[in-house]
C-alpha cells in the first residue's frame, strides 16, 4: 500500500442521538484538515448508493460509533461479505464492499474505525464526555493514517 492511494472516509450516524454522532463528528474534524487525496463523506447511515463511491476509491474507512468493546476505538479490516439479509436502514460495511465488488468490479480495501460511545437512547446533539475524549484520540490516529495508510494494516485488530 502506498500513501498516494485514494482514500474515502465515511463518518456515519445520527448526531441527534448523542454518541451516535461520533462518526459524523470525526468526518467533520477530518474535513477541516483538508488532507490531500482524501474524500470525506458523512451521512446518517450507509446506504446502497455508497457502493459507487466506495468503488471509486482504493481504501475506504467506515467511521461509526460502537456501543460496546474496545476503548477509545478499534480498527478492523473488513472483507466483502454477501450477507443473507439486511435492512437498507443500515447497510453493513462488509455488504457495501460486496456490492461495490459485484456491481462495479471494485477492489477497494475496507476498514472499520469503531469509536466507543456510551449514550445513545435520548435525543440530543452532544457527545458524552468520555465519547468526546475517544473522538479526540481517534482523530489523532486517523491523522497519522491519512499520512501513512500502511498504518491501517499494521494497527488493525490491535487494542488502542
Amino acid at each position, binding site marked *: 500500500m502506498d500513501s498516494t492511494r485514494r482514500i474515502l472516509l465515511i463518518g456515519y*450516524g*445520527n*448526531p*441527534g*442521538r448523542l*454518541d*451516535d454522532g461520533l462518526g*459524523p463528528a470525526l468526518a467533520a474534524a477530518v474535513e477541516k484538515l483538508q488532507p490531500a487525496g482524501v474524500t470525506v*463523506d*458523512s*451521512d*446518517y*447511515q450507509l*446506504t*446502497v*448508493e455508497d*457502493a*459507487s463511491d466506495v468503488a471509486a476509491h482504493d481504501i475506504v474507512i467506515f467511521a*461509526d*460509533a*460502537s*456501543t*460496546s468493546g474496545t476503548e477509545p476505538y478499534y480498527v478492523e479490516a473488513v472483507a466483502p461479505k*454477501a*450477507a*443473507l*439479509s*439486511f*435492512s*437498507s*436502514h*443500515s447497510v453493513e460495511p462488509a*455488504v457495501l464492499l*460486496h*456490492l461495490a465488488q*459485484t*456491481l*462495479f468490479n471494485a477492489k477497494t480495501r475496507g476498514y*472499520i474505525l*469503531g469509536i466507543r*460511545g456510551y449514550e*445513545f*437512547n*435520548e*435525543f*440530543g*446533539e452532544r457527545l458524552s464526555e468520555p465519547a468526546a475524549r475517544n473522538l479526540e484520540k481517534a482523530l489523532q490516529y486517523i491523522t497519522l493514517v491519512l499520512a501513512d495508510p500502511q498504518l491501517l494494516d499494521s494497527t488493525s485488530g490491535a487494542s488502542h
Partner: protein
Amino acid sequence: MQDTQDLKRVVIEPVTRVEGHGKVTILLDEQNTVKQARLHIVEFRGFERFIQGRPYTEAPVLVQRLCGICPVSHHLAAAKAMDQIVGVDTLTPTAEKMRRLMHYGQMFQSHSLHFFHLASPDLLFGFDADVAIRNVIGVAAKHKELAVQGVMMRKYGQEIIKATAGKKIHGTGAIPGGINKNLSIEERDGFLKDIDQMIEWSRGALKVAKDYTVENLEAVAPFGSFDSNHLSLIREDGAMDLYHGNLRAIDAQGDKIFDQVNYNNYLDYIAEDVRDWSYMKFPFIKSLGVENGWYRVGPLARVNTADFIDTPEAEAARKEFMAVTDGKPNNLTMAYHWARMIETLHSIEKIRELLEDSDLQGTDLVVKGDRRPEGVGLIEAPRGTLFHHYRVNENDQVEMANLIVSTTSNNEPMNRAVSKVAMDHISGKAEITEGLLNHIEVAIRAYDPCLSCATHALGKMPLVVRLVDAEGNEVAKKST
C-alpha cells in the same frame, strides 16, 4: 374473546427490509389457527418534547434528526410550517422551485431504493424463494443491471438533495420564508447530463412493476388486500401534487369524504386513536369514527385520489393503472409497488421540468412577513402525507409540536394487511416456514414503512424470529 394466554405466539422481530424497527406477533391455537396478528412499531415519540424550547428558526434543521431515511420530508414540512410562523403564505418562484426540486429528488431516491433493493427480491425471486438469494445481494448477482440502476438512481436523487439542501446530512436549504441558495448553472448542467438516462431507467422500473402486477393479478389481488379510504394532498385543479395542496379523502369506491380542505384545519378532520398494545397511534377521519375512518396514505392513495398527473408519461401510466379497476380506486396492497413507480417517473419528469426552468438561478430567495403564533406544514413524503404543526411563543421558542408521520397513518392498514396474510397463508399450516413468515413481511414492505429509526450504531439490527408457547417458552428460533 379467547384468552390469549392459551395461544402460541410467533414473533418476527425486527421486520427486515423496512426502514427502522418493527415487530410482528402472531397468536396461534393448538391447530396453528391464527387468532390474532399485529404489527408493533417501536417509535420514539420523545421528539416532540425534544424540540420544545428550541428557537423556531432551528426547527427545519432539527427535525431531520427524526429519521435518517426521510430527513428531507421532515425538513420541508417543518419549513412550510415555519413559513406560516414568519407570516409568509407565498414564496418567491426561486424558493418554491428549489424546494420542489429537493422534494422530487427525495421522492426519486427513496422510491428507487425501495423498489430496486427492498421490494424487488420478493418480486423477482418469489416470496418463498431461498432467503439466501431473496435479498439485494441476490438481485446484484442475478440481475446486476437492475441493481446498478437502483444504486445510480438513488445516487442521482441524493445528489439533487445535496445541491438543494446544501449537504446530505442536516441540510439547511429550506429556511422560514424561503431557501438559502439557488442552483448554479454548473450544478444544473451536471444533472441535465444524466436526466435522459434516469428517465429511461424509471420507465424500465415502471414496466417491471406493472408487468409483475398484471401478470400475477390472480395471486396479487387478494394478497393482504382490503377496501379502504385514501387520503392525500391534492392540487386545486385535482392534479397530484407531492409538495403542496389541500386535503382530499375518498372512500373505497372513490366517493369524496372531504375535498380541498385547507390543511391548517386538519384537526377538524383527522383525529388519532390510542391502543394499549401499540406505541404508535391510529389516525382516522373524524366524521367516520375510529371503526370506519382509518385510511391509507402513500403512493397507492395518491394515485387513487388524483384526478390526473401533470406530466405526460406518468399520466399515461396512471390511466393504465386505473383501467385495471375500471377507474375505481385500486385497493390492492401489492399495487403500492406499481403506484410507487408511477410516482418515480413523475418525479423525474418534474425534475427535468424544473432543471429547464431559469427560475432556479434566481436570486430572490426569501420573503418576510408578520410573525404568527402557529404554523402547520404538510407535504406528501415518499411514504405518505406528513403533518407538522407548531406553536411558537413570544420568545421565538417552540412551545408545542405535533407530528403525524406517514407510517402512523398507515398503521391500521398495515395491521389489517398483516392480519389478512396471516389468515390466508399461515393459519392451519403444520409448519411455519421462513418463506411463510416472509409473506407477512412482503405485505408490510408494500407500504414502505419508516419506523422512526434513529440509533443504528455498530452491532444492531439482527433478525430474530421466535416461536414461543403460552408459557413464554421458546420452541423454535430462526435468525439471520
